């Protein structure tokens, strides 16, 4: 496929959802497939329940820093609906494609009664108005099917792979998943990945 150069992907979610592993899987597979990759993340303090983003950039010529410029995201892989919308605000544009897991994770600001969490349907509707396409996949449910809700991030990587939005090969991703999880349930993670691939292909955009 003819790729934008660089191809800018943002994986966005909440600290603890496994952004970093997802970006690592994607990035390692891209390198194996012959791409150059630059990945930027928020580590350290931000992880304590705060919003986290991984910027994953694929390119073949030149070299790029790890932070995607304003409005530069081609793809947003959203592990959480509010974070997907938040990321769109700074990095989205009319052509952005979004894949989102609609399961909310309530910020403590909301739980403490200091803020309101909008209805998920409203969030998805607003996202739809702002982007080229939005696919909604219940990745947490699929992860539970594969064995553990914590594999939601791997399901989402499967969705990205199956969507065809990136040139990274499904086979390469599977190899990388096998290697990264070699000591902890590679089969379950592979199943999660495959469920994601299948789900995106069976899902129409909103």
């Amino acid at each position, binding site marked *: 496929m003819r790729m934008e150069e660089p191809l800018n992907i943002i994986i966005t979610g909440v600290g603890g959802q496994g952004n970093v592993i997802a970006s690592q899987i994607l990035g390692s597979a891209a390198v194996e497939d012959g791409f150059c990759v*630059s990945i930027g993340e928020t580590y350290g303090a931000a992880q304590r*329940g705060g919003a986290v983003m991984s910027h994953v950039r694929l390119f073949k010529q030149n070299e790029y820093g790890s932070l*995607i*410029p304003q*409005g530069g995201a081609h793809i947003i892989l959203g592990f959480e609906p509010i974070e997907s*919308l938040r990321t769109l*605000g700074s990095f989205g*544009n009319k052509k952005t494609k979004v894949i989102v897991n609609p399961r909310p994770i309530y910020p*403590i600001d909301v739980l*403490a009664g200091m803020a309101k969490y909008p209805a998920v349907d409203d969030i998805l509707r607003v996202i739809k108005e702002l982007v080229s396409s939005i696919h909604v996949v219940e990745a947490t449910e699929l992860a539970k099917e594969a064995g553990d809700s914590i594999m939601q991030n791997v399901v989402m990587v499967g969705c990205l792979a199956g969507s065809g939005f990136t040139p990274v090969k499904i086979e390469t991703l599977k190899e990388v998943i096998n290697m990264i999880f070699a000591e902890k349930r590679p089969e379950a993670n592979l199943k999660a990945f495959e469920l994601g691939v299948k789900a995106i292909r069976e899902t129409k955009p909103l």
Partner: protein
Amino acid sequence: MSYVGVDEPSRKVLLMGNEAIARGALEAGVHFCSGYPGNPASEILDTLAGLARKFDFYVEWSVNEIVALETAGAASFTGLRALTAMKNLGANVCADFLMTVSLSGTRGGFVLVTGDDPSAHSTTSELDTRNYARFADIPLLEPATMQEAKDMTKWAFDLSEELGVICLVRSSTRLSHSRGAVTLGPIKREKRSADFSPDDTWTSGSSRITSMFHSMLHEKLKRAQEKFENSSFNWYVGKKDADFVIVASGTGWLYSSEAVKLLGLENDVGILKLGTTWPLPEKLVATHLKHAKEVLFVEETDPFLEQNVKTLAAELAVEGIGPIRFYGKKSNHVRGEFGAGTGELDVDVVVNSLVEIKKLGYVPIGKEYSEKAQKLLSSYVPSRSMSFCAGCPHRASLWAIKKALKLDGRDGIVTGDIGCYSLGMLPTGFSVAKTLHCMGAGIGTANGFGNLKRFGLDKPVIALVGDSTFYHACIPALINAHWNRANLLLVVLDNNTTAMTGHQPHPGSGLNALGCISPKSPIEDICKAIGVEVTVCDSFDLDNAVKKLHEILQAEGAKVMIFRHECPLAFPKKKKVRVYVDADKCIGEGCGCVRFCTRVFGCPGNIWDYEKGKAKIDEAICNGCKLCAKLCPAEAIIVEEEE
């Protein structure tokens, strides 16, 4: 799993910046590594510790950064190659030794790697450690890419060994914590034996000797400068003899090249990328100052290059260079959210500078879009504050402290320190802590607050500190409190790990960096030896903790309370429990509770079922600590032990 230890030269792999630095040290044949955990540098030593056994070299987590630098310094004196890694503020802690070991000189290649943190994502200061290179008169290298992170670290050992001086490699968050493709080199394993002959002396001297050493140090810098003039880490791209030159270093390089591309200026401007930035390769810089009429400096965070190059330009004025219009921090073009010289760089900062300076009519992709989206966000999207993890003992400890201080009724002062519990200043920590500076400043400032009775400040003072930070910085301050009779209670939050930076061990853990069993120095023993009264408690036993705290606060003098409970992330429970809310018993918003678990206590595992109007447990997040079940005023939270 990572490719960092793979012995396949020329293979291209995905590495984190910190891994690339560690790989550089490995390829340079490092023998001795030390450091103290601190973001964004923590993974450098974590990675080296993971490679140490396979490649047969030594790694230690030291108790703090100055001891780390000193131990590595000694290794260098004996001819071994040594590396010390730390966060930016760590450089302040080891500055005493840095300023003297630069004078005494070194033998084996000795490299100090610092991780700066523009925008202070993880630290409490945007301190730019490049200033230390100029301050200490030592060579400075600034990697701009993952590849350079590896290659420069490797070269730094050769440079240091040849010149006999410690070299500073300065990284920053977006380099250390980003990942990118790196082509690996061969791993060098050279066996060396550590030598200290009877004739050896290592000192920065005193009186005239020191001035002499100082002069010798300047000579070393001159030799470094000569090497820098031809270094492959410096280059110029873009329009030949351009009128407009961007001088960039570190992460500024890739941001600048992308900005130039976005604005279509590839044929209009030149970019001088510098990797060896102290001493400045003056001849190289001069060649480009000759043709430049405008210069824009792109660097994180201080105007370090900016000021040094301007000084050079002033000196060269007699040779006909200039006048040049300089842009950067001083001109207020390169600025973060709060102004020039603050906040981190990104492509947009550089784009905006160029647009302003060159008066371009460029509109970023979707500027209108972004304004529309931002409007939606501010009224619609709730912010997501940080919070302690589910099951974190700090939540229990800080609640106990809040309660005890309220019961005491004198508006007690709580000073904070560096660690996960720094969040004690935020709502997740009940906003209990009122101060936060650097390692050990909690008990340090408490010494002051606890000695102001004669000036009318007569409130109880509690200093918070974690176990790792206690060993790092608090022992002298505790001795001071005892000796100078400060009235304070030091509360040590002992979760048996150095949590915020990735669960590294410390002198109370019983393990070292290599995972071997190690002698412990229990905190209570140290306190007793100092002569202060120590109480040990588990804050999960909340009523008891509150009672004990309240009692201790009524007494004078320096005292210590250790709240001991393991970090649930570092020591995950093997036995599973199922925690759920009996909605019939839940009082919810009614009098007697008013949503204590979600509104006040704030564990992310306690959520609210908006439909039922009752509390609920998010079983995906709940870690089974059972504390909310203990605290629920209606006893509505049920714990089921699973088989």
